[in-house]
Structure formats: C-alpha cells, structure tokens
C-alpha cells in the first residue's frame, strides 16, 4: 500500500509539473506579452521598458524556473489589473468554485449512480430505456444553454431563485444543477455497464445461492465492485467541472475562480491567468491522486498487492 501510494504520488507530481510547464510556455509563446501589457498605443520604447521591468527579456527557461520557485511558495506576484496580490485574489475566489464543484459533483453522483444501478437491475426494460434516453438528452444540451434555461424558468418566470451572485445557498442551486448535469450521462452509463458486468459475475450467483435478499446482493455484493471505476471517473468529471465552472460562473455572475479566469483573460492579466491555470490543474491532479487512494481502499487486490 505504501509502495502504491508513493508511486501514485510521483505520478501526480510529474503530471502537475508537466501541466505547469505547458501552461507557462503556451502563454508566453502565444504572443508578445510586453506588447499586450503596454497596450495598443504604447511606443516601442515603452514596450521595451515594460519588457525589462517584468524581466521578459530573459530566456524563457529562466523565467519559468523563477515563476515556479515563487509559485511553490505561493507567491504569484501582483495582478496587472486588480489592485492586489494574485494569492489574495485567488484565496477570495476559490471557496465559491470549490463549493460549486463539490455540490455539483455530489448532485450528479446522487442522480447518476442510482439511475445506473436501476437501469442495470432492470436491464432491457422500459426503466433501462428511459434512463438511457435521459443520458443521451443530458449529453446533447450544452452547459450554458441549460444554465440560461434554468435562469429563465426558475428565476425570471417563476421568481423562485436568484438570477445571479453567490451570497446565499439559494444562489448555488441553479448553477450546481447546470454544472452537475454535465457529469450525469457519463457516470450513469459507467455505473450501468459496471453493474451489468458485475451482476453476471460468478460471485453474484454465489451470493444468491446463499439465500441473500436482492438488496444485499445488489448493494453489498454488486455495487461495491461496480463503483470502483466510477470513483476514478468522478475525479475526471470533477476536473471537467472545474473547467465548466468558467462558463457557469460567467452565466450566473458568481465570483469564483472561473469568473476570475474569464476576467483575467479578457484583460491580459497574465500573472492571474497563469496562477489560476496552475491551481485548477493542481486541484485536478490532487483529486486524481485521492481517487487512486480511494480505489485502493475499495479494492483489496490493489491495497494488499
């Protein structure tokens, strides 16, 4: 187990470093940052001054190493646009995004897993077909369309819920549905297929031959095994949700990391963009690592290998 954990940790750290390299270089190679900062009316002399002020004239590798060295000590410099350090900006925005992501993930798992189990247990019946149609429809609706649709129905027409912002729990309901919806089809289908496979396993026949009730057979013996791949998928889906939160936070004007990224990109606020990308990627990598550890707890063949 220790060996497995260390191995997963090394993989996670390598992925995080790779992502930071890719993010850094993509940003720096996508255009002349000094010109972007200086603005369209700046003279060549002003651009040159900015280039020196921000150290942009040094080799990229040196710039990257310096940025990384500061980043691991949570020093991302100051925002070009906001009058504050990048770290305090992120610290003020991250709770909204994490709350939104966590609620969305829980919501989608609570809908998708039972639906998948139901579809597998009633394989080939009308219930199964309804669940599958639901997942196809789910995938066909883009996140922002669903978000706007929800706003029009529940906020504008029915006036049950607030249109935008993130100040009360009520503000989180619609965005969580819109964001969580996105993960439902994939999780549902994996749960269904996993359950179908497990339900035809020999040990399920053994469980039934013991005289166990259908509830114990399905939940204790089948779901416990079918859920293992779902854990890994849930981590991946959470990553997608962090990406999707850029759209959802913009639609619902929630001041989270996604919204911050959107503002920073629009204003060429490079230190903020870089930091947000790195933070999101690190959260994603961390979750994948957690999923690996959780898998080991669920699957004794990994834990005791």
């Amino acid at each position: 187990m220790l060996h497995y954990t260390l191995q997963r940790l090394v993989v996670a750290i390598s992925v995080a470093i790779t992502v930071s390299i890719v993010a850094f270089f993509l940003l720096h190679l996508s255009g002349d940052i000094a010109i972007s900062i200086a603005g369209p009316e700046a003279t060549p002399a002003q651009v040159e001054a900015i280039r020196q002020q921000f150290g942009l004239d040094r080799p990229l590798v040196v710039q990257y190493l310096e940025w990384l060295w500061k980043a691991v000590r949570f020093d991302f410099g100051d925002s070009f646009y906001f009058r504050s350090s990048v770290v305090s900006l992120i610290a003020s925005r991250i709770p909204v995004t994490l709350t939104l992501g966590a609620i969305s993930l829980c919501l989608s798992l609570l809908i998708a897993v039972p639906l998948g189990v139901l579809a597998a247990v009633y394989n080939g019946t009308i219930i199964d077909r309804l669940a599958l149609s639901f997942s196809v429809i789910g995938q066909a609706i883009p996140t922002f369309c669903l978000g706007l649709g929800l706003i029009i129905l529940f906020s504008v027409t029915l006036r049950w819920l607030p249109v935008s912002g993130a100040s009360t729990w009520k503000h989180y309901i619609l965005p969580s549905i819109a964001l969580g919806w996105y993960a439902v089809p994939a999780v549902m289908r994996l749960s269904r297929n996993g359950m179908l496979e497990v339900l035809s396993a020999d040990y399920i026949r053994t469980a039934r031959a013991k005289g166990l009730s259908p509830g114990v057979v399905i939940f204790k013996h089948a779901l416990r095994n079918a859920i293992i791949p779902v854990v890994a998928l849930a981590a991946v889906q959470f990553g997608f949700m962090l990406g999707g939160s850029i759209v959802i936070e913009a639609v619902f004007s929630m001041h989270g990391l996604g919204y911050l990224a959107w503002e920073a990109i629009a204003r060429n606020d490079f230190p903020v963009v870089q930091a947000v990308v790195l933070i999101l990627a690190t959260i994603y990598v961390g979750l994948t690592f957690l999923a690996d550890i959780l898998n080991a707890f669920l699957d004794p063949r990994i834990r005791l290998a």
Partner: protein
Amino acid sequence: MALLEVQDLVIDIPTASGLLHAVSEVSFSVDRGETLAIVGESGSGKSLTSLAIMDLLPRVAKRRAATLTFDGTDLLSMREPEMRKLRGSRMAMIFQEPMTSLNPAYTIGNQLMEALRCHEDVGAEKARARAVELLERVGIAGAERRLLQYPHQLSGGLRQRVMIAMALMCKPDLIIADEPTTALDVTIQAQILRLLHDLKKEFGMAMILVTHDLGVVARVADKVAVMYAGAIVERGPARAVFKAPSHPYTRGLLNCIPVPGRTAPGTPLGAIRGQLPNLIGRLEGCAFRDRCDFAAPECSGPMRYVPVDAGHDVRCIRAEARKAVA
C-alpha cells in the same frame, strides 16, 4: 418420500435461431443421505439442471416440470421470498469456478459469516466460531487468520474449500456440487472429492455431484444419472450401471477411462466420435443416433425408457434387441 423429487424437468432457452431445448424431460429423485452423480459431457445440461433445482437459472432460461418437490414442498409454486429461505439454509450449492465464485471485495470471514447470519438469528461471535470450526473441518490451517484474508490471497484449492465450508454454514439437507474439482489441479481434485464425500456422511446430507469423471462416480455415488443432449439416457444404482452399462453412450464414456491392468500403457484414450447435436428447434428420435454404432431406422421415432433391472433403466429403444445380440 424422497428428499428431492424431479419429474419431467424441461428447460428451454429462446435464442436468435430458435428455441434451445437445453434440458428435456429429466426425472430423478434423491433420498436423504444419498449421493446422486450426474455425468455427461460438457453442454449436456448438467449445470442448468442443478441451477433449476435452486431456482437460480439465468433469466432467459424457462423452467417447467411435472413435479419438483423438496422435502414434500412444491418448489414450482413457491414464491421467491420463500425460495430464498431454502437457498443456502436447506439446499446449498458449490460451483465449478472457485477462482471467481467468491466476492473479491470482502474477506473470507465476512462471506462465511454472512451465509449463516442471513438465515439464523445468531450474533457475530457465534457465526465466527462456526466459520472457524468449518474452515478447520475442510482442512484449512490457521483458520482464525484466514478469516481476515481476501479471496485473491488464496489458491484455487483453498478457495474451493472455503466454498465448501460456506455451503455447510447452515447445515443443509442437500448439497449440489457442480463439477467442484474440474478447475483444480489434478493432485487436489482427489482431496476435495474425498473431503466432500466425508462431509456428506458426517453431516448426513444428500448430495448431487455433477462430474464428468466416472472414476469418481464409482467411488462415491449411490445412484448415477447419465445425461446426454439435455436428457438422462441411463439411470440407476451406481453399482448396477457400472456392472451392466446399457446405453451405447454410457459404454462409450466407460471406454474413455483407462483401467489399471487392462488398458495397455500408451493406448490413446478412447473417445466417442462425433459431437453433441444441435438442440435448437423440434427434436425427434434419439439424440445420440448420429454417433451410435447400433443406430437403426426406428431410432428416429419416439423415445422411451426401457427397464434393465430394478431401478435401472435406459433411454434406448434398441436396448432389449441389443441385449439379445450381446
């Protein structure tokens, strides 16, 4: 009254190319304390017959019978919750695949104790004690420690011993063992069979032993049913069937076993030429006629059982004619 009565059991499976008659008109009975061996080549319907008794057939398979009673109770009209009370407690089953028949996610102890506690209102301590006792009885050393292990930490032979212990947790009246040793090393096969045989006697259980090893049958069975293409082609007391095998298929099977002293070393194992017929669609006549040396025109007509001796009969309409020749 016999413990288990099966009369005219039929199992049909709808397939894309028609109705598959997997089991047709199978009848047998098992008394308390008796061992019935069901033998026959792969695909002859032995597993489906076993599963039909437990009402554990795959969902596609449809079961019919004239009689299916266990200890005087009709199983055909029994509803699932009632059937569940019998399964595992009064009739238990051991499967062919020890490697995959235990749940990989739970410890041996968990799975053993569960088998008792889902039927009897006993505490964890008592269930654990019984699990330890049975693990020791089936020949597993360090039983206490094994309770905490997971299936993947045990060899196939050990897993099958665990399956046997699990089947015994509620002291069943009938144990159905479907080729319990086929997947195991040859050296372990004999040990497991001896164990099953001893336990059956010790616990006073009846046993249905499905196997294709006739050598095993001769040693442990009281009665034999030989299955071919979904039907029992010969049945009777084990001694009688071995002494006077009367169906050409049974004789073919017996010729497949090397006999020490009689079979010259290096002789290729006898095999019955040909293969199982297709069981889809309407079946007429003797299913063995394509492979039978004695086939005659009347073998395409309706089949019936011909008595050979007391309690020994054979599904071959030329049995009498052939006896006269032989």
